[in-house]
């Protein structure tokens, strides 16, 4: 598994979608960005390392004065006849030295204060946190001036600058590491190590630190860039250490020698360019490190030829190959031979040749385990799939109340926006957490109406919002409430109310009650079925809970590995499941009330390969 595959939308991850881990995860994936970055940094690093050995004395004064580049002096000479190239090599070495020293120093300090404080918690964390906050606001420039006043100019060396830059530069990184450690210390695996009886020091070093390394590396790179730039700034202002060569001091002398006025570009452009290129190289490396910390950033690369929602498929082509969907009487949504592929380096055929018919007022259950493609199918039907997911074949047709058929896969921007929510709405797993926490329930419902029903008056909108809330069993007085004032079950009801606002003909519900308690789940299902009876919309109910579907839905489709293995009326599926996989799923749920003999706690058979 060299490249990570893209997790399908909606949180259910396909097998193999897990992030890379271990030492390999600490190495960024290869990309042109990383290549260019590494190339720049290595080239400049080598120049700083070897250059001073090959090129002459940077301080050798010659009375030839300021001369443009020539074969003797590739980058010309300064006002005092010093060779610019030789100066540049020494200055690069000086700047890198400071950058590296400050990078290491700041990283060690930030790790010490950030990680240890966050893990220890309590008073230690409070005091470490306070200390880093104070350090964060100490400005570097005045501190350097103060220190410069204390340390005589002759004794000021490059290390003086380095120490000052470390002191003023570690605090921000400490705060970042503290936040990450706070999140890591409550992970189950850290708790598990605690339960196993590990010592605190070992938990920090063995369990937490390795997972922080990418972050620490990126903070280090950032500290190096910041140090080189800060040193250049300070030296340019004449606050640097004398008798040292840094890129900043080179610019300082160029400025003092009126290089700009004399148009001696060869004197000030090279050091500026080296700073810019080095910073650019380190930033590119940092982007690659960021990809380790946040694998989402890698998606665009994995998308390959991601060219929009229906890439690789023209509408008329699909129309001919799948044939016009034969319209069953009473059907509201027809899916014919739908194929969805994740176009990653290792393409995943997430949905294969799926055909479904949803009748008006029907509850269609879609059962399957994680990674079986049920969520991908729902997203594709609602046209919510994003690259690298692609619909490669098949058709989705909505038979509108008005009698017209809508080819869902052919819809373009405006039509698609109008179609979604108006004709077909969705409720996702954990949708209750997608309410905006700072806006009242009423405003969020109202927003949907103002977008889709521009002609509606404010009073009508308010009445409609109150109406849908009543429908789902929430007191309309709660309209002014904010999401955090409602329980999880109430929020999920609000989401269902929002999905019903525009009186859609189809509602797709992806695990709408999985995150809720059984008692609350029962209440919401009752609500959905009652509303279906009253309003006559059709529901696609996606869940892994087969007994639930057997009880409430009319038809059930069982999915495995992207295919529908069995599609039958619920009653028949319960009485006589045809496919072995359906039987296996059914057997996975022991009955609550049947006799004990039907299910005996035996212990597993303990045969090799039995473990999945």
């Amino acid at each position, binding site marked *: 598994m060299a490249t990570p595959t893209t997790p399908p939308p909606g949180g259910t991850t396909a097998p193999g979608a897990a992030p890379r881990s271990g030492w390999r995860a600490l190495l960024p994936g290869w990309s042109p960005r990383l290549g260019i970055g590494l190339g720049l940094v290595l080239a400049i690093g080598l120049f700083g390392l070897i250059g001073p050995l090959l090129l002459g004395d940077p301080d050798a004064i010659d009375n030839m004065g300021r001369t443009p580049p020539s074969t003797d002096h590739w980058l010309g000479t300064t006002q005092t006849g010093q060779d610019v190239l030789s100066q540049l090599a020494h200055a690069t070495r000086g700047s890198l030295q400071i950058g590296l020293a400050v990078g290491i120093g700041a990283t060690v300090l930030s790790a010490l204060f950030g990680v240890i404080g966050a893990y220890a918690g309590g008073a230690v964390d409070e005091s470490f946190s306070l200390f880093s906050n104070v350090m964060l606001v100490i400005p570097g420039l005045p501190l350097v001036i103060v220190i410069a006043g204390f340390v005589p100019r002759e004794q000021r060396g490059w290390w003086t600058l380095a120490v000052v830059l470390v002191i003023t530069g570690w605090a921000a990184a400490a705060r970042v590491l503290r936040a990450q450690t706070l999140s890591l210390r409550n992970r189950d695996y850290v708790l598990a*190590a605690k339960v196993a009886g590990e010592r605190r020091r070992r938990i920090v070093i063995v369990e937490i630190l390795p997972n922080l390394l990418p972050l620490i590396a990126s903070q280090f790179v950032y500290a190096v860039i910041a140090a080189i730039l800060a040193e250049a700034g300070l030296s340019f202002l004449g606050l640097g250490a004398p008798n040292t060569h840094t890129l900043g001091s080179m610019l300082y002398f160029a400025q003092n020698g009126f290089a700009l006025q004399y148009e001696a570009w060869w004197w000030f452009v090279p050091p500026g360019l080296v700073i810019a290129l080095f910073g650019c190289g380190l930033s590119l490396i940092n982007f690659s490190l960021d990809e380790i910390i946040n694998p989402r950033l890698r998606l665009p690369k994995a998308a390959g030829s991601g060219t929009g929602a229906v890439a690789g498929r023209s509408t008329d082509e699909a129309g001919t190959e799948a044939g016009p969907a034969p319209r069953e009487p009473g059907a509201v949504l027809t899916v014919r031979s739908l194929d969805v592929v994740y176009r990653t380096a290792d393409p995943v055929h997430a949905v294969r040749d799926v055909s479904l018919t949803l009748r008006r007022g029907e509850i269609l259950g879609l059962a399957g*385990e994680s990674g079986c493609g049920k969520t991908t199918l729902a997203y594709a039907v609602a046209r919510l799939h994003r690259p690298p997911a692609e619909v490669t074949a098949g058709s989705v047709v909505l038979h509108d109340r008005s009698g017209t058929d809508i080819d869902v896969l052919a819809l373009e921007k405006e039509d698609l926006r109008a179609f979604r929510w108006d004709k077909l709405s969705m409720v996702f797993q954990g949708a209750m957490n997608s309410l905006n926490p700072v806006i009242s329930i009423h405003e969020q419902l109202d927003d949907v109406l103002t977008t889709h029903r521009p002609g509606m008056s404010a009073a009508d909108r308010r009445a409609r919002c109150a109406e849908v809330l009543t429908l789902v069993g929430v007191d309309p007085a709660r309209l002014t409430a904010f999401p955090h004032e409602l329980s999880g079950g109430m929020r999920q009801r609000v989401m269902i109310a929002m999905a019903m606002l525009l009186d859609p003909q189809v509602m797709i519900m992806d695990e709408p009650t999985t995150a809720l308690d059984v008692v609350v789940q029962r209440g919401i299902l*009752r609500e959905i*079925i009652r509303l279906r009876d009253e309003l006559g919309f059709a529901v696609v109910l996606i869940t*892994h*809970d087969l007994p639930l579907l057997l009880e409430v839905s009319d038809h059930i489709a069982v999915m495995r590995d992207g295919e529908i293995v069995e599609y039958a009326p619920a009653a028949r599926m319960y009485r006589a499941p045809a496919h072995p996989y359906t039987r296996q799923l059914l057997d996975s749920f022991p009955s609550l009330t049947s006799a004990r003999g039907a299910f005996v706690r035996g*212990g597993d058979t303990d045969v090799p390969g039995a*473990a999945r």
Partner: protein
Amino acid sequence: MTTLSVHDLVKDYPVRAGLRHSTLRAVDHVSFTLRPGRTVALVGASGSGKSTVAKLIARLEKPTGGRITVTGEDGADVPARAYRDHVQLVFQDPFASLNPFHTIEHHLTRPLRLHGRARGRAEARQAAHALLERVSLRPAAAFAPRRPHELSGGQRQRVAIARALAPGARVVVADEPVSMLDVSIRLGVLHLLARLQREDHLAVLYITHDLATARHFSDEILVMHRGRIVERGPADDVILTPRHSYTRLLAAAAPDPEVRGRSLTAEPGTVTEEDLHRSFDHYTGAWQPTG
């Protein structure tokens, strides 16, 4: 034979709402005993306090009141520093409870060496492989060098169970051990726990919200509601003849294809006022007042 007893366990969490300080009682005077070879199921909705009980037993939280005592094979109380040799926890989410950075072998050899069950690298490795064999991850040599992300959810949970056994634990607290797994592999993991229990004579606390598996995989069921145990008794008695209105509510809410077409519009019922302050014990057949 190790027995774990919980007496009058209480856990309060401070709640800060603006300037007001109050406490939330997550666990309210809970008592029960885990005996070798027996499984006790603790069922309840999320927020009922059942996971807090797990954390208290695993010593990840300190109780506000009450005692947890472990009695060893010799009949004497186990001293505090040996507590973790005897009591281990299996976490709910196998995707979060294994460190993505470390190999499977590392996850097992650490507790083995920490609790003096193996000396030296070779011996620890051998013991780790034996543990993997016991949880049916075969061949062990193929699983040991892998990292958690290379394993399926069920395999990870098997590793987590092996890790709990590594210190030689005789009391295992399984906090929703299968709720994050795919349905078709849940029973396999539960059967594994049952086999290990039989082989090692383990005392198991099985925490779950699923009444059906609680009934089939345990001897005794405790129903928890708002931090209190509202009904207790032999598994079949509690499920088939529930007395407390909350247990009835839970049982009625569970999906059941047998009663397909039952009126979903009927009210599911509520917890009656008088039941809020009493609990039913099937062993004595009597109601007891709580709080």
